[in-house]
């Protein structure tokens, strides 16, 4: 028998139709079920249109609907559905028996990879095609189909499919374990934003002024979050607008790149790794130390909080040594857990000691770097030229200073530097003394947050008179009439609607007309200009009235109506404002007299007059 002739494949093939058909036939419940669920949407559309006989719908409505689905629904669905499809088509890699059959077949890895990838993508896209196709037919029947929008949405959906299936395939290639694959997928989708929050939180417990806020700096490493924040759909002038096509395109390309990397890994991957948590030896240290780090940062911190912070910690900030010990202990546990998973054995202790020592040393160094601020986060103050604007908030009062007010920005920076210079003083005093909240948020010229710091500052009378201290600089800043004005100035074109007074003592509330409100606003501006507003001096002397004035206004730019308001606590120094409130009848002379008596101050001169 001429074996070569009878058994030779006819030509080199990049896709095996038998395997493709087999994949689709084996996993039809998945894509068939998804298509069926998806088909409910056009069915609902059809029924509701038949019911209402809606004739007012236009192409823009259809376009807006498909854009919204592509931007806000498809990323979430694809995130979940991609891992299921990838788990199905790559499932043979996770069992020695199945990999033994598939890899013994007379096809090469290139053909296997392409065929399985096409199967997975087909399984992902069939439900979208079914849903979209039926929805288009319904829209066509009612005459509001926008083919351009449908094609644009279809392109976006394909790009989203590529990124999630690419990522899921990448996860399938780096592991040989069915359970590890979705875990890696979830991790890769969310680990970087989670890490930002986690590390920020640990910095917060060590360093003065640091607050764990999600800045989204690492969001681009989380496809699902970035797609959500980067894509949107809205209606403008009767036309539907889709925002974020470039974001989808970039992630689509990343998906293709991930499939390329996965192909290379598939060719390198050894069949015998079926069942292993990590498929490549060079990835094992990454897994071991990654798990150790994750354990140290999460469980280590948790252990510290339940054992040390609640019982032994003095002050508001974490103690270095107990935290380092907790992190080292949990890091070592994490290292052992990872080793056990890799070795598929509980007997890993004897051979793990070099790794354990590395973990302990690494965790202690990391913890030390955070506590002793090696990165200089605590002392970080932005450069004046980088600042577009800065918002300062002290005891609930916000001040916004723009880069044009170079003098005030410079004062803010000087104040911030003084605060950071006194970090140890604040750390020691914060827990035992009354503190005032002090926030700083710097923005760059594009309006993005540059730096955010929040402090609880102990305010000392003595230091307030000492030049160079943060209390002194804060007082100078807050007493600056320009700063006072910035607290109360409403934007240009603002229309004042009403003014009211909240009396905390009696719980009474009174409001007045638009004209009287205008007069009250002018009086507030006058007080601000003279430096009379409720401020640091009022807090310092405790001479504030138990009442606040509230002015409500709107800015209408023809498109949007923006609500504005001023809420000011009253103080005896605000003479012009008190006069205007008396004139408007929002407060009475008797009330003011009573407030003064409660404060033990001299009777207000206007009242006496």
């Amino acid at each position, binding site marked *: 028998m001429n074996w070569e002739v009878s058994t030779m494949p006819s030509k080199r093939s990049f896709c095996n139709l038998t395997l493709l*058909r087999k994949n689709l036939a084996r996993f039809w419940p998945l894509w068939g079920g998804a298509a069926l669920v998806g088909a409910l949407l056009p069915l609902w559309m059809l029924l509701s249109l038949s019911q209402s006989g809606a004739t007012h719908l236009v192409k823009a409505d259809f376009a807006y609907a498909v854009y919204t689905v592509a931007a806000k629904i498809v990323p979430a669905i694809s995130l979940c559905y991609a891992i299921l499809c990838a788990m199905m088509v790559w499932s043979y890699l996770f069992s020695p028996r199945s990999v033994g059959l598939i890899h*013994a077949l007379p096809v090469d890895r290139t053909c296997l990879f392409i065929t399985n990838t096409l199967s997975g993508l087909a399984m992902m896209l069939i439900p979208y095609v079914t849903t979209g196709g039926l929805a288009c037919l319904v829209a066509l029947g009612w005459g509001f189909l926008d083919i351009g929008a449908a094609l644009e949405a279809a392109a976006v959906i394909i790009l989203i499919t590529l990124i999630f299936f690419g990522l899921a395939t990448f996860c399938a290639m780096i592991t040989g374990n069915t359970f590890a694959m979705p875990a890696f997928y979830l991790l890769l989708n969310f680990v970087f934003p989670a890490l930002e929050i986690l590390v920020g939180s640990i910095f917060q417990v060590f360093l003065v002024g640091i607050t764990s806020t999600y800045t989204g700096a690492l969001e681009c490493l989380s496809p699902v979050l970035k797609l959500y924040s980067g894509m949107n759909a809205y209606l403008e002038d009767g036309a539907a607008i889709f925002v974020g096509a470039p974001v989808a395109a970039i992630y689509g390309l990343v998906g293709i790149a991930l499939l390329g990397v996965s192909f290379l890994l598939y060719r390198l991957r050894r069949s*015998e790794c079926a069942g292993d948590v990590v498929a490549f030896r060079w990835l094992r240290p990454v897994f071991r130390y990654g798990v150790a780090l994750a354990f140290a940062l999460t469980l280590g911190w948790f252990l510290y909080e339940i054992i040390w912070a609640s019982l032994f910690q003095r002050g508001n900030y974490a103690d270095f040594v107990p935290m380092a010990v907790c992190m080292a202990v949990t890091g070592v546990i994490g290292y052992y857990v990872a080793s056990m998973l890799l070795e598929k054995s509980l007997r890993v202790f004897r051979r793990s000691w070099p790794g354990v020592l590395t973990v302990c040393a690494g965790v202690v160094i990391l913890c030390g770097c955070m506590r002793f601020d090696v990165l200089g986060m605590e002392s970080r103050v932005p450069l004046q030229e980088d600042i577009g604007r800065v918002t300062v908030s002290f005891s609930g009062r916000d001040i916004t200073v723009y880069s044009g007010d170079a003098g005030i920005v410079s004062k803010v920076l000087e104040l911030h530097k003084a605060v950071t210079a006194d970090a140890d003083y604040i750390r020691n005093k914060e827990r035992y003394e009354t503190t005032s909240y002090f926030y700083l948020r710097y923005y760059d010229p594009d309006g993005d947050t540059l730096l955010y710091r929040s402090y609880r500052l102990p305010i000392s009378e003595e230091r307030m008179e000492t030049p160079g201290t943060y209390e002194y600089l804060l007082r100078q800043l807050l007493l600056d009439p320009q700063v006072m004005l910035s607290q109360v100035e409403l934007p240009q074109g603002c229309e004042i609607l009403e003014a009211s007074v909240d009396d905390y003592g009696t719980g009474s509330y009174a409001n007045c007309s638009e004209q009287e409100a205008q007069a009250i606003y002018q009086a507030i501006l006058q007080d601000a200009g003279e430096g009379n507003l409720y401020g640091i001096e009022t807090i310092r002397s405790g001479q504030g009235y138990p009442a606040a004035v509230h002015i409500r206004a709107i800015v209408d730019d023809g498109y949007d109506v923006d609500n504005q308001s001023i809420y000011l606590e009253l103080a005896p120094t605000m003479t012009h404002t008190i006069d205007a409130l008396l004139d408007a009848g929002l407060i009475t002379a008797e009330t003011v007299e009573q407030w003064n008596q409660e404060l033990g101050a001299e009777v207000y001169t206007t009242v006496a007059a």
Partner: protein
Amino acid sequence: MIEVRELVKRFGGFAALDGASVTVPEGSVYGLVGPNGAGKSTLIRHITGVYRADRGQVLVDGENVYENPEKKALVAAIPDEWFYFPSATIRDMMRFYRGFYPAFDMDRYERFKEVFAISEKAVIRRLSKGMQKQAAFWLTMCCRPKYLVLDEPVDGLDPVMRRQVWSLMMSDVAEYGTTVLVSSHNLRELEDVCDHVGIMSRGKVLLERSLSDLQENIVKLQVVWPSAEVPVLPADLPVLHTSHVGRVYTYIVRGNAGEVSRRMEESRPMMLEALPLSLEEIFIYELGGEHYAVKEIVL
């Protein structure tokens, strides 16, 4: 011809194959034997193109088989644990195999329906272990491979079906020149069908030759010495094993039966008889030097 040259395969720190070399001549039935963990299944997975060698070569008809679809199309295998898709019937798996093996013989598939007497619509998962093995033979033999590679092939088959499948394979060998490489622990069965044997231990092939050569190269001598005192045998006589019952001594000696008997007669035995060894005995005594002898344990 299948040639494996100096094949090395390590799993972690453990060398499953440590320089194994095998030559399976075309048209032969080659029995691969060895103790558990010797590396037989690992070697077979290299020959079927599943594993990539760390070092060495696995050649089918002179070409590397790994990532070589043309050569893999010549090889069909039944592994020790045959894989089928969870809900697949025999017919489903037939369609699957047919899509990959260009020489898949549908006429043979139809004819085998009578041989194996299993419904092709039966879901394989629900069949007994023996019936699953029959299904594996059914489909694999329909692929009409040039090289049939079998790992513990008849485990789970009843005696009648064992004979039936061996008969089918032997007829393929005779009629089409199919080469069979079979790994098994059932040495009595292998002795009946194999013409070549390779003995593996600890990742190496200790010896391989035709069964007749093997049997000619080791002999069992039963000797009765004239006195209770056993004479000293020639130092260069390669005795693998000695045992005795009373004055009847049994020697397993490596070498040609005539030559070994002549050397032994120099020691003037009262009676000497040369007996052929079964494959099982050869296996046991050859591996005795590899610290794998049957231990006489008294509990």
